[in-house]
């Protein structure tokens, strides 16, 4: 390597409790992959490369320049890998909604491990399990003892387990934003302060959204998207449809809203908002068009799945964090 040739960045991508969509969003860079590969060596990426955990363990500390960690922390394997990659990585990025705030898997915090296991291993319509077998963390077979990861009661966001340098939100993050961030690192541009959300705007969705907005947000009835004759032009909230846009960072290019679906909130809250669900509920409460207590209760009851609507991507990382578990 000559002196003026820049050393290539060492890049890792890992998934915790994730659906795989984040890894696919990395693949979605398409032909820009050449720019990425020109500037970086992929040293670890389970979905695409056959590199084992022991190979990562063998790396010196701080060997990896950037790790994009997607997925939440839901079991002991996720947690182990989070600690390992933190140790081996200079810049750890919580990539995607699940690593950022807990994401969809985080909705499990509205229940408990026991309730989930009961449903999955005993009660579900497709389960035949007369011996009531449940997952064990270790099991003896003739060849020796097998270990599988322990399933935790709580789902956690990445920063609730290890120190995180940056957050790149989205379900999944918009690929163009990833390329922007990546190229900024590669070109040595000045990085934002540690803990910043990158690849997203300061302002929320409404700033980019082209639908007509007024101060006339009065809701007499909450509606599901299929219940309205959407004109494609009026603010969803002004049509009685809950849109998380006001409480959600821009940066995705208002993809859902442009597709005539209300924002679901995957880009997480704007800066300084610690609990986007509470913020949005508080905002929605001011829009209910009634002074009558009984009528207000009736209107509020029309919100289908309030917990899932307001905390769809953010439960573990919000102040609410989880349903209270009674300990005896």
């Amino acid at each position: 390597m000559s002196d003026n040739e820049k050393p290539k960045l060492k890049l890792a991508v890992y998934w915790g409790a994730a659906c795989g969509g984040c890894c696919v969003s990395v693949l979605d860079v398409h032909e820009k992959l050449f720019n990425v590969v020109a500037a970086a060596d992929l040293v670890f990426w389970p979905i695409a490369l056959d590199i084992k955990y022991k190979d990562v363990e063998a790396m010196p500390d701080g060997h990896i320049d950037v790790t994009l960690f997607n997925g939440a922390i839901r079991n002991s394997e996720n947690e182990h890998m989070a600690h390992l990659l933190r140790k081996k990585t200079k810049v750890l990025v919580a990539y995607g909604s699940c690593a950022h705030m807990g994401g969809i898997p985080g909705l499990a915090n509205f229940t408990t491990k026991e309730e989930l296991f009961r449903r999955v291993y005993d009660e579900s319509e497709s389960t035949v399990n007369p011996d009531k077998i449940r997952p064990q963390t270790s099991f003896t077979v003739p060849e020796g003892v097998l270990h599988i990861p322990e399933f935790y009661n709580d789902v956690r966001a990445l920063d609730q387990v290890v120190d995180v340098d940056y957050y790149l939100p989205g379900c999944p993050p918009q690929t163009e934003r990833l390329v922007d961030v990546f190229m900024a690192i590669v070109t040595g541009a000045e990085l934002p302060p540690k803990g910043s959300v990158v690849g997203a705007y300061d302002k929320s969705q409404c700033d980019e959204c082209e639908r007509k907005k007024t101060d006339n947000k009065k809701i007499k009835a909450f509606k599901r998207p299929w219940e309205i004759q959407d004109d494609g032009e009026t603010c969803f909230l002004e049509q009685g449809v809950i849109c998380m846009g006001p409480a959600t960072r821009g940066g995705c290019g208002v993809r859902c809203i442009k597709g005539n679906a209300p924002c679901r909130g995957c880009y997480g809250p704007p800066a300084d908002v610690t609990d986007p669900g509470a913020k949005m509920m508080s905002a929605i409460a001011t829009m209910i068009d009634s002074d009558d207590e009984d009528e207000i209760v009736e209107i509020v009851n029309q919100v289908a799945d309030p917990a899932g609507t307001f905390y769809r991507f953010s439960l573990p990382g919000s102040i609410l964090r989880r349903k209270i578990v009674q300990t005896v």
Partner: protein
Amino acid sequence: MEEIRIGVYVCWCGTNIAKMVDVEAVAKAMREIPGVIVAKDYKYMCSDPGQELIIQDIKEHNLNRVVVSACSPRIHELTFRKALENAGLNPYMFEMANIREHDSWVHTDRAEATQKAKALVAGAINRVRWHESLDKRSVEINPATLIIGGGIAGISAALEIADAGKQVYLVEKQSQLGGTVAKLDLLFPHLDSAQQLIQPKINRAMNHLSIQCFLNAEIREVFGYIGNFEAKVYQKDDLETEIQFGNVIVATGLKPFDPSKIDQLNYKRLPNVITSLELEEKLLSGNLVMDNGKDPKHIALIHCIGSRNKNHHEYCSRTCCNTALKYSNQIRSAFPDAAIYEIYSDIRSFGKGCEELYTHTARQDVMFLMYDQKGEVPKITEARHSEKVNMMLEFREQLSGEHVEVPADLVVLMVAMEAHENAKEIAHAVGVSMCGNSFYIEKHPKLDPVATTTGGVYVVGSCQSPKDIPDSVSQARAAAARIMADINFGSVEVEVTTAVVNEDICCGCQTCISVCPYTAIHFDAEKNVSVVNEILCKGCGTCGSACPTGAIRSRHFTDKQILSQIEGLMSMQLQH
């Protein structure tokens, strides 16, 4: 960032706090908290030596934050803010923890009360870390006053201010001034003439050089803020007049309850069932007869129609008992031989000279029968042809426990007094709040009874709750005095703990605009952001909690400050 240096002062309040809270232990525990430089306990923090202690410590230890844990901030927050100012600190670098009303007075276990005090003070310490300096602001006062409503209250206030040489705009929606009083014949308790009382005042108001009267007129919206309001007065034939003023008095009065809502009274169906105000009309015209032109021989007055019953109005309408007693006297002098029935539920003839009116009336051969106003009102039916009377009233008489029938030729319903239908529109136009009964809410029920939470807006008379004439006039003149004081001073200090929009975050969703009770927020379409008028803003925080983006900060009540306070509280609870 500057180093945080906090002084903590735990007050004994004599024995009020010290008896139930181990104040020394609280002060000692607070010394362990990072950033706390001094923590002391003292017998009376609010006393001059107590305040001097704080001032000395600020100077000696270079304190930049102060926490006093004592009584309610409603009592002494201003005292201690002033002490900080005297020591050269910004008064908002202060937080008060209430360990008296919220703690020592309401607990019986000393150990637990002490633990709670520690938690409350730790919360205040954690909050005060995030406090920011806020600067005082003042605005000049336009010496003109708008008075909405030309009844006895509005006229009294108008004359008070105009006689001091200041301009008044008096806006009345009817075609003449005088309001309810102008519709009355005689007044309780002395049975003097309402007309002789009100007419000279009307004439004086109409002809006063400093009063501009607008009749058949209304105000739809008031813009601006204390000292600098403006509005349009709308009159017939699209006549519009723009006016500017520094203060507003709302004196819109009330209206009678419609008894046709209560079926069994048969009001409107039986022609000789009338309301108290309809009786006033008959008395004023000197023509107290039945619909057939004959004199009534049996007259029944039914109290509490629409009042003191949760199906209608839970409150007492306050003037009807005395008015009914007045009627008995007027009817007795018109018809010396008539049978008069006061069908009441409780006689509430309080007030100067009013109990005497009741005693006097009881000697006028009037029969008092008691019914249960929480249950069913008397049922009024047409009498059979064989009867010599026109109608029959049936109800359970409470004192005897008997079911009784009372004959009547004329029934007078003492109807409740209620807020106008358009009370809400006026409330919104001027920025005052309404209670559940649609009466306007004063700033403090005891200590600030005519001001409202909107600076420069006052509520007087029966739009605030049903009132008699002396109380209405007292309130009107009190508001006038308040306004004269502000005009005389020339300027007024305005709230500094206002909301502020961070334009870098605001996304233009406009959720905040309609929730503001003071119409202090408008939308800047060019920048696509909401803008708070900080002089109109009262810092109520509604927009801050409604704002889904976190762009609106309520100064002195930021999320960071509140959440830190909660964390501080919880940190002490966990150690318990």
